[in-house]
Protein backbone atom coordinates (compact mmCIF):
# COMPACT_ATOMS: atom_id res chain seq x y z
CA UNK A 1 0.00 0.00 0.00
CA UNK A 2 1.54 3.23 -1.03
CA UNK A 3 1.28 6.39 0.91
CA UNK A 4 1.43 10.08 0.27
CA UNK A 5 3.07 13.06 1.84
CA UNK A 6 0.89 15.56 3.57
CA UNK A 7 2.70 18.59 4.83
CA UNK A 8 1.93 22.02 6.18
CA UNK A 9 4.77 23.84 7.82
CA UNK A 10 6.69 27.04 8.27
CA UNK A 11 10.44 27.33 8.00
CA UNK A 12 12.21 30.58 8.72
CA UNK A 13 15.81 31.39 7.93
CA UNK A 14 17.92 33.70 10.01
CA UNK A 15 17.86 36.88 8.00
CA UNK A 16 14.20 36.77 7.34
CA UNK A 17 12.98 34.73 4.39
CA UNK A 18 10.18 32.51 5.41
CA UNK A 19 8.74 29.50 3.71
CA UNK A 20 5.14 28.74 4.40
CA UNK A 21 3.81 25.52 2.98
CA UNK A 22 0.15 24.79 3.18
CA UNK A 23 -1.23 21.43 2.28
CA UNK A 24 1.52 20.05 0.18
CA UNK A 25 0.49 16.66 -1.08
CA UNK A 26 1.82 14.13 -3.48
CA UNK A 27 -0.76 12.58 -5.68
CA UNK A 28 -0.42 8.85 -5.31
CA UNK A 29 1.78 5.97 -6.40
CA UNK A 30 3.67 6.27 -9.66
CA UNK A 31 2.68 9.89 -9.98
CA UNK A 32 5.13 12.73 -10.12
CA UNK A 33 4.40 16.04 -8.48
CA UNK A 34 6.50 18.87 -9.76
CA UNK A 35 7.40 21.70 -7.43
CA UNK A 36 7.92 24.54 -9.86
CA UNK A 37 9.25 28.04 -9.39
CA UNK A 38 12.13 30.40 -9.98
CA UNK A 39 15.38 30.03 -8.07
CA UNK A 40 15.14 31.30 -4.55
CA UNK A 41 11.48 30.51 -4.18
CA UNK A 42 12.29 27.95 -1.49
CA UNK A 43 11.76 24.74 -3.44
CA UNK A 44 14.95 23.05 -2.29
CA UNK A 45 14.20 23.89 1.32
CA UNK A 46 10.81 22.25 1.07
CA UNK A 47 12.44 19.11 -0.23
CA UNK A 48 15.04 19.13 2.53
CA UNK A 49 12.34 19.53 5.18
CA UNK A 50 10.50 16.55 3.77
CA UNK A 51 13.69 14.51 3.75
CA UNK A 52 14.38 15.42 7.36
CA UNK A 53 17.53 17.40 6.66
CA UNK A 54 15.98 20.63 7.91
CA UNK A 55 13.52 21.12 10.69
CA UNK A 56 10.60 23.54 10.36
CA UNK A 57 9.42 25.66 13.26
CA UNK A 58 5.70 25.09 13.02
CA UNK A 59 3.36 22.71 11.35
CA UNK A 60 3.45 19.04 10.60
CA UNK A 61 4.68 16.58 8.04
CA UNK A 62 2.95 13.27 7.69
CA UNK A 63 3.47 10.33 5.43
CA UNK A 64 0.37 8.15 5.32
CA UNK A 65 -0.29 7.70 9.01
CA UNK A 66 3.31 8.17 10.08
CA UNK A 67 4.16 11.43 11.73
CA UNK A 68 7.50 12.64 10.46
CA UNK A 69 7.42 16.02 12.07
CA UNK A 70 5.17 17.77 14.52
CA UNK A 71 5.93 21.13 16.07
CA UNK A 72 6.86 20.58 19.75
CA UNK A 73 6.40 16.93 19.12
CA UNK A 74 8.14 13.90 17.67
CA UNK A 75 10.68 14.24 14.90
CA UNK A 76 11.50 11.24 12.79
CA UNK A 77 15.14 11.43 11.69
CA UNK A 78 16.00 11.01 8.00
CA UNK A 79 17.45 7.58 8.71
CA UNK A 80 14.00 6.26 9.50
CA UNK A 81 11.96 7.89 6.77
CA UNK A 82 12.93 5.55 3.89
CA UNK A 83 13.09 8.47 1.51
CA UNK A 84 15.21 8.56 -1.62
CA UNK A 85 16.82 11.96 -1.94
CA UNK A 86 18.85 13.13 -4.91
CA UNK A 87 20.31 16.63 -4.46
CA UNK A 88 21.05 19.01 -7.26
CA UNK A 89 24.70 18.17 -7.78
CA UNK A 90 24.12 14.49 -6.98
CA UNK A 91 26.62 14.47 -4.10
CA UNK A 92 28.14 11.14 -4.98
CA UNK A 93 30.66 10.11 -2.31
CA UNK A 94 33.92 11.03 -4.03
CA UNK A 95 36.03 8.51 -2.16
CA UNK A 96 33.87 5.50 -2.99
CA UNK A 97 33.46 3.59 -6.22
CA UNK A 98 30.19 3.49 -8.12
CA UNK A 99 29.32 0.12 -6.65
CA UNK A 100 30.09 1.26 -3.11
CA UNK A 101 28.16 4.46 -3.61
CA UNK A 102 25.14 2.54 -4.74
CA UNK A 103 25.44 -0.05 -1.99
CA UNK A 104 26.08 2.44 0.79
CA UNK A 105 22.60 2.29 2.24
CA UNK A 106 22.52 -1.50 2.28
CA UNK A 107 25.14 -2.12 4.95
CA UNK A 108 22.68 -4.04 7.10
CA UNK A 109 21.80 -6.42 4.30
CA UNK A 110 23.64 -9.71 4.06
CA UNK A 111 26.59 -9.67 1.74
CA UNK A 112 25.24 -11.94 -0.97
CA UNK A 113 21.90 -10.23 -1.17
CA UNK A 114 23.59 -6.87 -1.18
CA UNK A 115 25.80 -7.80 -4.10
CA UNK A 116 22.80 -9.08 -6.01
CA UNK A 117 20.77 -5.97 -5.45
CA UNK A 118 23.65 -3.76 -6.46
CA UNK A 119 24.07 -5.81 -9.61
CA UNK A 120 20.36 -5.58 -10.41
CA UNK A 121 20.24 -1.86 -9.88
CA UNK A 122 23.31 -1.30 -12.02
CA UNK A 123 21.74 -3.21 -14.87
CA UNK A 124 18.40 -1.48 -14.46
CA UNK A 125 20.00 1.93 -14.79
CA UNK A 126 22.40 0.97 -17.54
CA UNK A 127 25.58 1.37 -15.54
CA UNK A 128 27.32 -1.90 -16.41
CA UNK A 129 31.07 -1.66 -16.61
CA UNK A 130 31.27 1.35 -14.34
CA UNK A 131 31.22 -0.47 -11.00
CA UNK A 132 34.82 0.28 -10.09
CA UNK A 133 34.97 3.85 -11.36
CA UNK A 134 35.11 6.83 -9.09
CA UNK A 135 32.54 9.60 -9.49
CA UNK A 136 35.20 11.94 -10.84
CA UNK A 137 35.64 9.60 -13.80
CA UNK A 138 31.98 9.62 -14.81
CA UNK A 139 30.10 11.80 -17.23
CA UNK A 140 27.25 14.00 -16.05
CA UNK A 141 24.62 11.60 -17.26
CA UNK A 142 26.32 8.64 -15.62
CA UNK A 143 26.55 10.50 -12.34
CA UNK A 144 22.89 11.26 -12.43
CA UNK A 145 22.04 7.63 -12.92
CA UNK A 146 24.36 6.55 -10.12
CA UNK A 147 22.69 9.06 -7.82
CA UNK A 148 19.31 7.66 -8.75
CA UNK A 149 20.53 4.11 -8.28
CA UNK A 150 21.86 4.95 -4.84
CA UNK A 151 18.57 6.53 -3.84
CA UNK A 152 16.40 3.79 -5.26
CA UNK A 153 18.22 0.63 -4.24
CA UNK A 154 16.91 0.93 -0.72
CA UNK A 155 13.34 0.70 -2.01
CA UNK A 156 12.27 4.08 -0.67
CA UNK A 157 8.63 4.95 -0.23
CA UNK A 158 9.05 8.44 -1.57
CA UNK A 159 11.45 9.92 -4.07
CA UNK A 160 12.65 13.51 -3.82
CA UNK A 161 14.56 14.94 -6.76
CA UNK A 162 16.13 18.38 -6.70
CA UNK A 163 16.66 19.69 -10.24
CA UNK A 164 17.64 16.24 -11.51
CA UNK A 165 18.65 17.46 -14.95
CA UNK A 166 20.02 20.94 -14.40
CA UNK A 167 23.59 19.76 -13.99
CA UNK A 168 23.60 18.28 -17.48
CA UNK A 169 24.34 19.82 -20.86
CA UNK A 170 21.66 20.32 -23.50
CA UNK A 171 21.63 17.13 -25.59
CA UNK A 172 22.26 14.89 -22.57
CA UNK A 173 19.50 16.62 -20.73
CA UNK A 174 17.03 15.95 -23.47
CA UNK A 175 17.97 12.33 -23.74
CA UNK A 176 17.89 11.70 -20.02
CA UNK A 177 14.61 13.45 -19.61
CA UNK A 178 12.92 10.71 -21.56
CA UNK A 179 14.76 8.03 -19.62
CA UNK A 180 13.83 9.62 -16.34
CA UNK A 181 10.20 9.78 -17.31
CA UNK A 182 10.21 6.06 -18.10
CA UNK A 183 11.95 5.32 -14.83
CA UNK A 184 9.52 7.32 -12.73
CA UNK A 185 6.63 5.51 -14.33
CA UNK A 186 8.13 2.17 -13.36
CA UNK A 187 8.46 3.03 -9.69
CA UNK A 188 5.38 2.40 -7.67
CA UNK A 189 6.02 5.33 -5.40
CA UNK A 190 5.15 9.01 -5.37
CA UNK A 191 7.83 11.38 -6.56
CA UNK A 192 8.29 15.02 -5.71
CA UNK A 193 10.49 16.76 -8.23
CA UNK A 194 11.83 20.29 -8.12
CA UNK A 195 12.60 22.22 -11.28
CA UNK A 196 12.56 25.70 -12.74
CA UNK A 197 12.46 24.52 -16.36
CA UNK A 198 9.07 24.63 -18.00
CA UNK A 199 9.77 21.88 -20.49
CA UNK A 200 11.01 19.62 -17.73
CA UNK A 201 7.92 20.20 -15.66
CA UNK A 202 5.78 19.37 -18.63
CA UNK A 203 7.74 16.28 -19.58
CA UNK A 204 8.06 14.77 -16.13
CA UNK A 205 5.15 15.97 -14.04
CA UNK A 206 1.63 14.79 -13.52
CA UNK A 207 0.70 17.37 -10.95
CA UNK A 208 2.22 20.80 -10.73
CA UNK A 209 2.64 22.98 -7.67
CA UNK A 210 3.89 26.49 -8.29
CA UNK A 211 5.98 28.13 -5.61
CA UNK A 212 6.60 31.84 -5.36
CA UNK A 213 8.24 33.78 -2.55
CA UNK A 214 8.15 30.82 -0.20
CA UNK A 215 4.49 30.03 -0.73
CA UNK A 216 2.51 27.54 -2.75
CA UNK A 217 0.46 29.65 -5.11
CA UNK A 218 -1.21 27.23 -7.47
CA UNK A 219 -1.57 23.54 -7.95
CA UNK A 220 -3.24 21.22 -10.39
CA UNK A 221 -2.60 19.07 -13.43
CA UNK A 222 0.46 20.31 -15.23
CA UNK A 223 -0.97 21.59 -18.46
CA UNK A 224 -3.84 23.25 -16.67
CA UNK A 225 -1.64 25.28 -14.41
CA UNK A 226 0.50 26.28 -17.31
CA UNK A 227 -2.30 27.37 -19.52
CA UNK A 228 -4.52 28.85 -16.86
CA UNK A 229 -2.41 30.65 -14.34
CA UNK A 230 -4.66 32.02 -11.63
CA UNK A 231 -2.78 35.24 -11.24
CA UNK A 232 -0.25 37.44 -12.87
CA UNK A 233 2.56 36.19 -10.70
CA UNK A 234 2.00 32.58 -11.67
CA UNK A 235 1.58 33.58 -15.27
CA UNK A 236 4.95 35.25 -15.12
CA UNK A 237 6.49 32.14 -13.68
CA UNK A 238 5.05 29.71 -16.16
CA UNK A 239 5.38 32.02 -19.13
CA UNK A 240 3.82 29.69 -21.59
CA UNK A 241 0.52 30.91 -22.75
CA UNK A 242 -0.93 28.07 -24.77
CA UNK A 243 -0.45 24.50 -23.59
CA UNK A 244 -2.82 21.85 -24.89
CA UNK A 245 -2.83 18.09 -25.03
CA UNK A 246 -2.79 16.51 -28.44
CA UNK A 247 -1.90 13.39 -30.38
CA UNK A 248 0.39 12.78 -33.29
CA UNK A 249 -1.47 11.40 -36.27
CA UNK A 250 1.02 11.63 -39.08
CA UNK A 251 4.75 11.85 -39.38
CA UNK A 252 6.47 12.40 -42.75
CA UNK A 253 9.10 14.55 -44.40
CA UNK A 254 10.28 15.98 -41.12
CA UNK A 255 6.84 17.25 -40.20
CA UNK A 256 4.25 15.90 -37.85
CA UNK A 257 0.55 16.49 -37.76
CA UNK A 258 -0.96 16.81 -34.35
CA UNK A 259 -4.61 16.76 -33.52
CA UNK A 260 -5.51 19.24 -30.83
CA UNK A 261 -9.14 19.41 -29.89
CA UNK A 262 -10.78 19.58 -33.29
CA UNK A 263 -7.93 21.21 -35.13
CA UNK A 264 -4.93 19.83 -36.81
CA UNK A 265 -1.54 21.49 -36.38
CA UNK A 266 1.72 20.95 -38.17
CA UNK A 267 4.99 20.99 -36.32
CA UNK A 268 8.57 19.89 -36.80
CA UNK A 269 9.05 16.29 -35.89
CA UNK A 270 11.64 14.81 -33.66
CA UNK A 271 10.95 11.24 -34.62
CA UNK A 272 7.60 11.06 -32.94
CA UNK A 273 5.60 8.12 -34.21
CA UNK A 274 1.89 8.46 -34.84
CA UNK A 275 -0.12 7.79 -31.74
CA UNK A 276 2.25 9.61 -29.41
CA UNK A 277 0.49 11.69 -26.82
CA UNK A 278 1.99 15.16 -26.65
CA UNK A 279 1.49 18.62 -25.32
CA UNK A 280 1.60 21.42 -27.87
CA UNK A 281 3.00 24.69 -26.57
CA UNK A 282 2.66 27.98 -28.37
CA UNK A 283 4.03 31.27 -27.16
CA UNK A 284 1.56 34.07 -27.50
CA UNK A 285 4.12 36.24 -29.26
CA UNK A 286 4.43 33.65 -31.99
CA UNK A 287 0.79 33.90 -33.04
CA UNK A 288 0.13 36.17 -36.04
CA UNK A 289 -3.43 37.39 -36.71
CA UNK A 290 -4.72 38.09 -40.16
CA UNK A 291 -8.03 39.53 -41.20
CA UNK A 292 -9.26 38.12 -44.47
CA UNK A 293 -7.67 35.06 -45.95
CA UNK A 294 -4.07 35.53 -46.96
CA UNK A 295 -3.40 34.49 -50.55
CA UNK A 296 -0.33 32.39 -49.88
CA UNK A 297 1.74 32.53 -46.77
CA UNK A 298 4.64 30.60 -45.32
CA UNK A 299 3.33 29.46 -41.92
CA UNK A 300 2.12 25.92 -42.17
CA UNK A 301 -0.58 26.50 -39.61
CA UNK A 302 -3.53 28.59 -40.53
CA UNK A 303 -6.42 28.45 -38.15
CA UNK A 304 -9.84 29.99 -38.13
CA UNK A 305 -10.27 31.48 -34.72
CA UNK A 306 -12.82 33.56 -32.89
CA UNK A 307 -11.76 36.45 -30.69
CA UNK A 308 -12.98 35.80 -27.19
CA UNK A 309 -11.46 38.62 -25.18
CA UNK A 310 -9.05 41.48 -25.37
CA UNK A 311 -6.96 42.12 -22.27
CA UNK A 312 -4.78 45.21 -22.22
CA UNK A 313 -1.40 44.81 -20.57
CA UNK A 314 0.41 48.07 -20.77
CA UNK A 315 1.62 48.75 -24.31
CA UNK A 316 0.49 45.35 -25.55
CA UNK A 317 -2.79 43.61 -25.90
CA UNK A 318 -3.35 40.01 -24.91
CA UNK A 319 -5.93 38.34 -27.11
CA UNK A 320 -7.76 35.20 -26.09
CA UNK A 321 -8.91 33.17 -29.06
CA UNK A 322 -10.81 29.99 -29.68
CA UNK A 323 -9.63 27.77 -32.50
CA UNK A 324 -11.14 24.55 -31.37
CA UNK A 325 -8.89 24.91 -28.34
CA UNK A 326 -7.89 27.93 -26.29
CA UNK A 327 -5.16 29.96 -27.97
CA UNK A 328 -3.47 33.14 -26.78
CA UNK A 329 -1.88 35.84 -28.89
CA UNK A 330 -0.05 39.04 -28.04
CA UNK A 331 -0.27 42.09 -30.29
CA UNK A 332 0.65 45.72 -29.88
CA UNK A 333 -2.26 48.01 -29.17
CA UNK A 334 -1.57 49.71 -32.42
CA UNK A 335 -1.91 46.45 -34.31
CA UNK A 336 -5.14 45.74 -32.51
CA UNK A 337 -6.57 49.04 -33.55
CA UNK A 338 -5.37 48.62 -37.09
CA UNK A 339 -7.16 45.32 -37.34
CA UNK A 340 -10.14 46.68 -35.44
CA UNK A 341 -10.38 43.51 -33.40
CA UNK A 342 -13.48 42.99 -31.34
CA UNK A 343 -14.79 40.07 -29.30
CA UNK A 344 -16.75 37.68 -31.42
CA UNK A 345 -14.89 38.50 -34.60
CA UNK A 346 -13.54 35.75 -36.76
CA UNK A 347 -9.95 36.05 -37.87
CA UNK A 348 -7.18 33.77 -39.03
CA UNK A 349 -4.28 32.84 -36.76
CA UNK A 350 -0.96 31.94 -38.35
CA UNK A 351 1.71 29.98 -36.53
CA UNK A 352 4.89 28.67 -38.09
CA UNK A 353 5.58 24.96 -37.67
CA UNK A 354 8.82 25.46 -35.70
CA UNK A 355 6.93 27.64 -33.23
CA UNK A 356 4.69 24.81 -32.15
CA UNK A 357 6.68 23.03 -29.42
CA UNK A 358 5.85 19.40 -28.86
CA UNK A 359 6.43 17.69 -25.58
CA UNK A 360 5.88 13.94 -25.55
CA UNK A 361 3.93 12.61 -22.62
Amino acid at each position, binding site marked *: MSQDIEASFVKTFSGGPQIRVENLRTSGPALTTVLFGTSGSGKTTVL*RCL*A*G*LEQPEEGSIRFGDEVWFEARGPLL*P*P*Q*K*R*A*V*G*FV*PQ*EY*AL*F*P*HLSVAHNIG*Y*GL*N*RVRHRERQERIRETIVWLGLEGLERRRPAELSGGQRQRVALA*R*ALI*GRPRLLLLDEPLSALDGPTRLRLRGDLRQLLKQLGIPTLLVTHERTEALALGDQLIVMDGGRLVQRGPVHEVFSRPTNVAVAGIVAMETVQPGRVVESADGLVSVVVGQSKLVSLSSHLPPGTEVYICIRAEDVVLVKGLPARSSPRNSLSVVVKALVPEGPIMRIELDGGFPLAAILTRQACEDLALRPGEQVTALVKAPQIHLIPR
Partner: protein
Amino acid sequence: MTREDWQLIGFTARMAATSTLVILPVGLALAWCLARAQWRGKVLLETAVMLPLVLPPVVTGLALLKWFGRRGACGSWLHDTLGLDLIFTWRAVVLALAVMSLPLLVLASKSAFEEVDQTFEQIARTLGAGEWRIFFTITLPLARRGILAGTLLAFARALGEFGATIMVAGNIPGQTTTLSVAVYQYVQLGEDAHAWVLAGISASVAFLAVLLASGHLVRRTKR
Protein backbone atom coordinates in the same frame (compact mmCIF):
# COMPACT_ATOMS: atom_id res chain seq x y z
CA MET B 1 77.19 9.00 18.05
CA THR B 2 77.32 6.66 20.99
CA ARG B 3 75.08 3.78 21.84
CA GLU B 4 73.38 6.00 24.38
CA ASP B 5 72.61 8.47 21.65
CA TRP B 6 70.82 5.81 19.63
CA GLN B 7 68.89 4.77 22.71
CA LEU B 8 68.04 8.41 23.23
CA ILE B 9 66.67 8.77 19.73
CA GLY B 10 64.73 5.54 20.12
CA PHE B 11 63.30 6.68 23.43
CA THR B 12 62.32 10.09 22.09
CA ALA B 13 60.68 8.54 19.04
CA ARG B 14 58.78 6.05 21.18
CA MET B 15 57.54 8.78 23.48
CA ALA B 16 56.48 10.98 20.58
CA ALA B 17 54.68 8.09 18.92
CA THR B 18 52.90 7.18 22.14
CA SER B 19 51.81 10.73 22.77
CA THR B 20 50.57 11.08 19.19
CA LEU B 21 48.53 7.89 19.52
CA VAL B 22 47.10 9.14 22.80
CA ILE B 23 45.99 12.48 21.39
CA LEU B 24 44.46 11.07 18.21
CA PRO B 25 41.06 10.05 19.62
CA VAL B 26 40.93 13.07 21.92
CA GLY B 27 42.06 15.50 19.24
CA LEU B 28 39.73 14.18 16.56
CA ALA B 29 36.78 14.27 18.93
CA LEU B 30 37.57 17.84 19.92
CA ALA B 31 38.15 18.87 16.32
CA TRP B 32 34.86 17.36 15.22
CA CYS B 33 32.94 19.08 18.02
CA LEU B 34 34.53 22.41 17.22
CA ALA B 35 33.89 22.00 13.51
CA ARG B 36 30.35 20.73 13.59
CA ALA B 37 28.52 21.37 16.81
CA GLN B 38 27.20 24.75 17.79
CA TRP B 39 26.90 25.62 21.43
CA ARG B 40 27.50 28.58 23.65
CA GLY B 41 30.69 27.56 25.43
CA LYS B 42 32.38 26.65 22.16
CA VAL B 43 34.71 29.63 22.02
CA LEU B 44 35.98 28.89 25.51
CA LEU B 45 36.78 25.32 24.66
CA GLU B 46 38.54 26.37 21.49
CA THR B 47 40.65 28.87 23.40
CA ALA B 48 41.53 26.36 26.10
CA VAL B 49 42.66 23.81 23.53
CA MET B 50 44.81 26.39 21.73
CA LEU B 51 46.48 27.71 24.87
CA PRO B 52 49.53 25.41 24.87
CA LEU B 53 50.29 26.71 21.41
CA VAL B 54 50.72 30.28 22.53
CA LEU B 55 51.73 30.02 26.18
CA PRO B 56 55.42 29.73 26.98
CA PRO B 57 56.04 25.98 27.19
CA VAL B 58 57.49 26.28 30.67
CA VAL B 59 54.26 27.90 31.83
CA THR B 60 52.31 24.96 30.50
CA GLY B 61 54.86 22.71 32.15
CA LEU B 62 54.40 24.53 35.43
CA ALA B 63 50.64 24.09 35.28
CA LEU B 64 51.05 20.38 34.56
CA LEU B 65 53.51 20.10 37.43
CA LYS B 66 50.99 21.64 39.79
CA TRP B 67 48.07 19.47 38.70
CA PHE B 68 49.84 16.17 38.27
CA GLY B 69 52.39 16.46 41.05
CA ARG B 70 52.04 14.17 44.05
CA ARG B 71 50.12 16.86 45.92
CA GLY B 72 48.22 18.20 42.95
CA ALA B 73 44.55 17.83 42.07
CA CYS B 74 44.96 15.03 39.55
CA GLY B 75 48.28 13.73 40.78
CA SER B 76 47.11 12.99 44.29
CA TRP B 77 44.11 11.07 42.96
CA LEU B 78 46.31 9.06 40.64
CA HIS B 79 48.77 8.34 43.42
CA ASP B 80 46.17 7.40 46.02
CA THR B 81 43.71 5.42 43.91
CA LEU B 82 45.92 3.92 41.24
CA GLY B 83 49.32 4.03 42.88
CA LEU B 84 50.51 5.84 39.77
CA ASP B 85 53.18 8.51 39.78
CA LEU B 86 53.50 10.75 36.80
CA ILE B 87 56.10 13.40 37.57
CA PHE B 88 59.70 12.45 36.85
CA THR B 89 58.66 9.33 34.97
CA TRP B 90 58.29 8.53 31.28
CA ARG B 91 54.54 9.05 31.71
CA ALA B 92 55.19 12.70 32.39
CA VAL B 93 57.12 12.86 29.13
CA VAL B 94 54.09 11.49 27.27
CA LEU B 95 51.87 13.93 29.15
CA ALA B 96 53.98 16.94 28.26
CA LEU B 97 54.34 15.92 24.62
CA ALA B 98 50.62 15.20 24.36
CA VAL B 99 49.53 18.53 25.82
CA MET B 100 51.96 20.53 23.70
CA SER B 101 51.18 18.80 20.41
CA LEU B 102 47.40 18.47 20.80
CA PRO B 103 46.59 21.99 19.54
CA LEU B 104 48.33 21.34 16.23
CA LEU B 105 46.34 18.19 15.64
CA VAL B 106 43.07 19.87 16.60
CA LEU B 107 43.76 22.91 14.43
CA ALA B 108 44.52 20.91 11.31
CA SER B 109 41.75 18.37 11.85
CA LYS B 110 39.16 21.04 12.57
CA SER B 111 39.97 22.68 9.24
CA ALA B 112 39.80 19.35 7.52
CA PHE B 113 36.39 18.55 8.97
CA GLU B 114 35.07 21.99 8.11
CA GLU B 115 36.03 21.45 4.50
CA VAL B 116 34.00 18.29 4.20
CA ASP B 117 30.80 19.21 2.42
CA GLN B 118 27.99 18.48 4.83
CA THR B 119 25.77 17.49 1.91
CA PHE B 120 27.56 14.14 1.85
CA GLU B 121 26.76 13.58 5.48
CA GLN B 122 23.14 14.53 4.90
CA ILE B 123 22.74 12.15 1.99
CA ALA B 124 24.23 9.42 4.11
CA ARG B 125 21.54 10.09 6.69
CA THR B 126 18.78 9.68 4.12
CA LEU B 127 20.38 6.38 3.20
CA GLY B 128 19.93 5.18 6.76
CA ALA B 129 23.42 5.64 8.21
CA GLY B 130 23.70 6.54 11.90
CA GLU B 131 25.97 9.35 13.13
CA TRP B 132 28.90 7.08 14.12
CA ARG B 133 28.82 5.29 10.78
CA ILE B 134 28.72 8.61 8.97
CA PHE B 135 31.74 9.80 10.92
CA PHE B 136 33.86 6.76 10.14
CA THR B 137 32.75 6.12 6.56
CA ILE B 138 32.18 9.62 5.22
CA THR B 139 33.57 12.46 7.33
CA LEU B 140 36.83 10.89 8.41
CA PRO B 141 37.88 9.50 5.01
CA LEU B 142 37.09 12.79 3.32
CA ALA B 143 39.11 14.68 5.91
CA ARG B 144 42.01 12.29 5.99
CA ARG B 145 44.54 14.50 4.22
CA GLY B 146 44.24 17.34 6.68
CA ILE B 147 44.17 14.98 9.62
CA LEU B 148 47.30 13.25 8.41
CA ALA B 149 49.06 16.59 8.05
CA GLY B 150 47.98 17.50 11.57
CA THR B 151 49.22 14.20 12.95
CA LEU B 152 52.61 14.65 11.32
CA LEU B 153 52.94 18.15 12.68
CA ALA B 154 51.90 16.96 16.13
CA PHE B 155 54.48 14.18 15.98
CA ALA B 156 57.20 16.57 14.90
CA ARG B 157 56.25 18.97 17.66
CA ALA B 158 56.35 16.16 20.19
CA LEU B 159 59.81 15.14 19.02
CA GLY B 160 61.12 18.62 19.60
CA GLU B 161 59.32 19.47 22.81
CA PHE B 162 61.51 20.79 25.61
CA GLY B 163 60.12 23.40 27.98
CA ALA B 164 57.17 21.54 29.41
CA THR B 165 59.01 18.22 29.34
CA ILE B 166 61.90 19.38 31.43
CA MET B 167 59.51 20.82 33.99
CA VAL B 168 57.45 17.70 34.57
CA ALA B 169 59.79 14.91 33.64
CA GLY B 170 63.15 16.36 34.50
CA ASN B 171 66.28 15.04 32.90
CA ILE B 172 66.83 11.55 34.24
CA PRO B 173 69.30 9.80 32.02
CA GLY B 174 67.87 6.64 30.55
CA GLN B 175 64.45 7.32 32.01
CA THR B 176 63.13 10.67 30.87
CA THR B 177 65.86 12.32 28.84
CA THR B 178 64.60 13.25 25.40
CA LEU B 179 66.56 14.45 22.39
CA SER B 180 66.04 18.15 22.99
CA VAL B 181 66.73 17.84 26.71
CA ALA B 182 69.96 16.03 25.91
CA VAL B 183 71.03 18.81 23.54
CA TYR B 184 70.47 21.36 26.31
CA GLN B 185 72.41 19.22 28.75
CA TYR B 186 75.39 18.75 26.46
CA VAL B 187 75.52 22.49 25.95
CA GLN B 188 75.52 22.98 29.71
CA LEU B 189 78.36 20.53 30.10
CA GLY B 190 80.34 22.19 27.37
CA GLU B 191 80.12 19.19 25.03
CA ASP B 192 79.17 21.29 22.05
CA ALA B 193 80.10 18.87 19.31
CA HIS B 194 77.89 16.23 20.82
CA ALA B 195 75.08 18.73 21.14
CA TRP B 196 75.39 19.70 17.48
CA VAL B 197 75.13 16.11 16.30
CA LEU B 198 71.90 15.57 18.21
CA ALA B 199 70.58 18.95 17.18
CA GLY B 200 71.24 18.06 13.57
CA ILE B 201 69.24 14.86 13.88
CA SER B 202 66.41 16.68 15.58
CA ALA B 203 66.34 19.32 12.86
CA SER B 204 66.39 16.78 10.03
CA VAL B 205 63.48 14.83 11.42
CA ALA B 206 61.48 18.01 11.99
CA PHE B 207 62.27 19.17 8.46
CA LEU B 208 61.13 15.88 7.00
CA ALA B 209 57.91 15.86 8.98
CA VAL B 210 56.98 19.38 7.96
CA LEU B 211 57.86 18.63 4.34
CA LEU B 212 55.54 15.64 4.28
CA ALA B 213 52.80 17.54 6.05
CA SER B 214 52.97 20.48 3.66
CA GLY B 215 52.98 18.07 0.76
CA HIS B 216 49.65 16.79 1.94
CA LEU B 217 48.28 20.27 2.39
CA VAL B 218 49.43 21.47 -1.00
CA ARG B 219 48.00 18.48 -2.76
CA ARG B 220 44.69 19.07 -1.10
CA THR B 221 44.28 22.67 -2.19
CA LYS B 222 45.32 21.88 -5.74
CA ARG B 223 42.32 19.68 -6.34
